[in-house]
């Protein structure tokens, strides 16, 4: 047996998607019904509806909806955490869901972004700069993207499961550097990470520790912008190339897709979004140490993407919300959360491998079938 000659006919990611093909047809058809009705609405109505949903989420911390708020923790700060997880899932979805690259060390980019803000922004750091917060964020994104390119450059040619392990190693290296490096200062960490600028009329800081709603609104805004950006990419040559690579990398190359270039873009964009989420996280905490970046959290990120439905923004959002919100809502059970997510990963892969919300494409097609059938009936009548 020669594993060296194991040239997979389809990319590992493509075969991954093969696995997502046991479909609960009825449920998909139901979703497709909702989707086609949605698409049939006039554009104005659709925009208004989306705006209403956005407004609802902005108002969420002010609405006293029974059962949703978290009894044990500040609801707004939980919402902030949820928003950061959603941002992570949106970024990781580009890598796993669209380009089909299994990245188990995504936490590494999250950490790079968080530490970039802390190292360049905190007066306690020896490398502190005088840049304002609004400059630090692009710096954090840039540093993360560069680290993504440095990691991806040599490794993106590897087989899928090897890539998974290398990225896992990368995530762990980043954590160990954070633990051991004098500047990141291990468990003691870096205090006084700068917060976004702005003041209330009474002079107290807008992004303070008491009222965390501004942080949530900021994170929500960032999430919406990034989702919009990812959507733009999806509906373009870039998104098509990612899907083609995920489906069959060799065939994609032979159809003129520069697969390495687009894989590297996926990796860099994913890293940038991961870094951005880390930067927001660090700004909100005001303090970071190496404890926040263990590999279990990285596995949790993957779980968020896979549970909800890889390749699909609504799906990964749902996954991220579940994974970050449930343990906060049911604090008493938080001890069991990793156990639960571990079992959930197995169960989902075995019983519902396409995730909770299956991808748009299947739904579109079923809707088309239905329409065709109806047209035939009308034509025959």
């Amino acid at each position, binding site marked *: 047996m020669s594993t060296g000659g194991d040239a997979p006919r389809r990319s590992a990611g493509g075969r991954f998607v093969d696995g997502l093909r046991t479909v609960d047809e009825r449920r998909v058809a139901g979703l497709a019904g909702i989707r086609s009705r949605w698409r049939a609405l006039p554009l104005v109505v659709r925009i208004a509806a989306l705006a209403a949903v956005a407004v609802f989420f902005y108002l969420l911390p002010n609405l006293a909806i029974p059962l949703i708020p978290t009894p044990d923790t500040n609801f707004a700060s939980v919402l902030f955490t949820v928003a950061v997880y959603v941002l992570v899932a949106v970024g990781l979805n580009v890598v796993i869901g669209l380009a089909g690259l299994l990245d188990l060390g995504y936490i590494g980019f999250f950490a790079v972004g968080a530490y970039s803000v802390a190292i360049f922004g905190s007066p306690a750091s020896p490398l502190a700069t005088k840049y304002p917060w609004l400059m630090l964020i692009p710096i954090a994104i840039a540093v993360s993207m560069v680290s993504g390119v440095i990691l991806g450059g040599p490794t993106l040619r590897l087989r899928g499961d090897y890539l998974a392990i290398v990225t896992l190693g990368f995530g762990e290296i980043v954590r160990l550097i954070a633990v051991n490096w004098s500047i990141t200062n291990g468990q003691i960490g870096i205090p006084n990470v700068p917060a976004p600028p702005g003041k209330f009329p009474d002079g107290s800081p807008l992004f303070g520790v008491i009222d965390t709603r501004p942080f949530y609104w900021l994170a929500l805004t960032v999430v919406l912008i990034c989702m919009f*950006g990812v959507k733009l990419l999806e509906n*373009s*040559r870039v998104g098509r*190339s990612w899907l083609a690579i995920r489906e*069959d990398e060799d*065939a994609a190359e032979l*159809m*003129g897709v520069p697969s390495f270039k687009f894989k590297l873009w996926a990796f860099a964009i994913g890293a940038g979004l991961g870094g951005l989420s880390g930067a927001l996280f660090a700004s909100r905490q005001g303090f970071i140490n190496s404890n926040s970046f263990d590999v279990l959290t990285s596995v949790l990120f993957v779980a968020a993407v896979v549970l909800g439905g890889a390749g699909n923004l609504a799906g990964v959002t749902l996954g991220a919300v579940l994974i970050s919100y449930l343990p906060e809502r049911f604090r008493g059970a938080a001890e069991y959360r990793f156990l639960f997510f571990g079992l959930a990963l197995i169960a989902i892969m075995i019983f519902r491998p396409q995730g909770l919300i299956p991808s748009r494409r299947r739904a579109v097609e079923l809707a088309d079938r239905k329409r065709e059938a109806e047209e035939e009936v009308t034509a025959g009548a």
Partner: protein
Amino acid sequence: MPDATTGVAGPPLLEVDDVTMQFGGVTALDHISFEVRRGEILGLIGPNGAGKTTCFNVMTGVFQPTSGEVRLNGQKLVSRSRHQITRLGIARTFQNIRLFPEMTALENVQVGGDARHRTSVPGALLRLPRHRREERDGRTQAFELLDFMGIPHAANSLARNLPYGDQRRLEIARALATGPELLCLDEPAAGFNPAEKEELLALIRRIRDRGQTVLLIEHDMRLVMGVTDRIVVLEFGRKIADAAPAAVRADPKVVAAYLGVPEDAA
């Protein structure tokens, strides 16, 4: 001008020059040379294991030949990456269909068209004019090609759900979308019934009439004889004939190769 031995005369589009391909100790292609002339339909035939698909793979950059050179319009192809070769003007289909199964037929063809597009992440994010132009042109072209191949109804179906014949047609549409000068078809009629084969013949001629050159690997001798201007025959990695269909049919070496008569007896 067509003549008896060379089919359609035209300047060489693709030159395969003394190509040898070895895998370990096995020689799959043994000093193969032939050329494809602009505007012709060239058949590449031979018994199983003769090296036809290996030849395709060397031309399209899947394999680096052990020695020898491949040129398209005089430009060297060896050691160029696969997507660069495609952009230079060679497109192909696969013996075993290799579509992008979870993408719609339209998107499959659009991916092919993207070979000639240049929009990358910044252009797509900022919706620059070039992105918009390319999207519009790509969609129009994709619909035209689906129409040309006779599968306009399939546009929004996922590739994996199409019937077998439509998948074969979609693969050709996707290859055509890359805007090739040379279209390489690897057993496009495999699994077709006689009526479908007839249709395919007409289609290949129409592709040539659009100004594209076609290189055809085929097992079905009747199909090859009926449509090609010239035929190259491989056996055990060596070229044993290169002539017009009639001459090839009469060539004792070819007959021997296909009927399994020992070479010395032939």
